């Protein structure tokens, strides 16, 4: 009888005793989870993601909870949509359904800004290799520089699943920090004269047929050049095609609302589930966060410098600040450009131009990841 009571009591106290004996990393990660929840709730930093990620992190770090063991809730979500890359792709359908590529189509050359904005990816790849990461892990880390959460998750879950947690948290955190990271770089690289350049207003010149054919053409062209990235580009363009064809409004609305919301919840919880203390707290995690920061800074540097080049080539008709919007953080980066432009000239409206560059960055980040995957395939590494 006494033995049974003791065994029963052990069942109630084993979690607490584990926490005090070997639960140091769990305690730290419980604090990290609480910080993520604080940032999401109180500061409203990417709350749709940080709240489920933070809560998932808290859940998985409660000792002996077994949520990431086979059959556990978080493991189930992970296997259901991250291990097989389904969740990021479903999110891409929603993103495609939300984005209006009209401002990019008004001036297609803005796409080149979207290419310049991916420069940080490739320098970060060299940096990761120099720090000793194997090739596929280095590629997965570098994709943080795409500033595109779903793409980073898609690549990491395939080629570096052991680094998925730090990579995805870094990608989403830095996306949210774009309004803090970019402005000092933009100011440092431009002159006061350049910052007040007013660009000609955008004239509406895109027909509905062009907008309808755009997603199909982009899918075909990028699919032929970089087929390994077709799941990424194909889903984003499927969403956009549903938006532009206007005959499947229910599917479009479901993609950008219900499906995207449910998947975001599951994705966040599953990523939080990968943040178990003993696995997450490694020097590599800190390095990944550092390299992610470098990548986004370099993206901004390259974008603004490319803007200066285009400004010079156009005889001063292009404000170089818009180059900073060539990353994938949409529409945050475009808003940052608008705010910076108006800081020096209240009547300067750069938003539409920056939105064109920003949607170019959205496509650019997916193309960069697709090209990298196809090059890896060509080299026989995947």
């Amino acid at each position, binding site marked *: 009888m006494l033995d049974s009571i003791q065994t029963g009591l052990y069942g109630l106290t084993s979690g607490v005793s584990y926490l005090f004996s070997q639960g140091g990393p769990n305690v730290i990660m419980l604090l990290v989870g609480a910080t993520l929840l604080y940032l999401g709730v109180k500061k409203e930093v990417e709350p749709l993601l940080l709240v489920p990620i933070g809560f998932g992190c808290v859940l998985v770090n409660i000792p002996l909870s077994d949520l990431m063991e086979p059959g556990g809730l978080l493991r189930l979500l992970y296997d259901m949509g991250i291990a097989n890359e389904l969740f990021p792709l479903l999110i891409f359908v929603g993103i495609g359904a939300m984005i209006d590529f009209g401002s990019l189509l008004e001036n297609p050359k803005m796409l080149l800004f979207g*290419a310049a904005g991916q420069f940080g990816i*490739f320098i970060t790849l060299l940096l990761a290799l120099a720090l000793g990461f194997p090739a596929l892990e280095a590629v997965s880390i570098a994709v943080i520089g795409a500033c595109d959460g779903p793409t980073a998750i898609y690549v990491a879950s395939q080629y570096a699943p052991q680094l998925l947690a730090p990579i995805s948290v870094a990608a989403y955190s830095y996306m949210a920090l774009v309004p803090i990271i970019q402005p000092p770089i933009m100011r440092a690289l431009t002159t006061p004269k350049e910052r007040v350049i007013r660009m000609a207003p955008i004239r509406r010149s895109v027909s509905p047929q062009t907008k309808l054919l*755009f997603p199909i053409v982009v899918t075909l062209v*990028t699919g032929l050049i970089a087929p390994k990235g077709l799941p990424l580009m194909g889903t984003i363009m499927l969403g956009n095609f549903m938006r532009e064809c206007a005959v499947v409004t229910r599917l479009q609305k479901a993609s950008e609302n219900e499906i995207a919301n449910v998947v975001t919840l599951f994705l966040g919880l599953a990523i939080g589930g990968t943040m178990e203390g003993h696995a997450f707290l490694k020097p590599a995690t800190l390095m990944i966060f550092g390299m992610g920061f470098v990548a986004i800074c370099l993206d901004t540097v390259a974008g603004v410098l490319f803007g200066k080049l285009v400004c010079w080539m156009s005889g001063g008709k292009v404000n170089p600040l818009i180059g900073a919007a060539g990353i994938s953080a949409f529409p945050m980066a475009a808003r940052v450009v608008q705010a910076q432009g108006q800081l020096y000239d209240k009547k300067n409206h750069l938003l539409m131009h920056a939105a064109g560059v920003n949607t170019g960055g959205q*496509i650019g980040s997916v*193309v960069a990841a697709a*090209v*990298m995957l196809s090059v890896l395939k060509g080299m026989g590494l995947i």
Partner: protein
Amino acid sequence: MDNDKWAFGLTMMVVGMGGTFLTLWILSLVMDLLKKVFPLPHEGGGAEKKS
């Protein structure tokens, strides 16, 4: 970093960045072409025809 890693990193940088630029440049040309093939009809098109 050993030679293999350098070779891999530089290959990814040159082919990856070059491929990204090239793909996006081709896309921009195709988008320009689409706009030419399917231009936006002028709102005052009818009046222009009369003159």
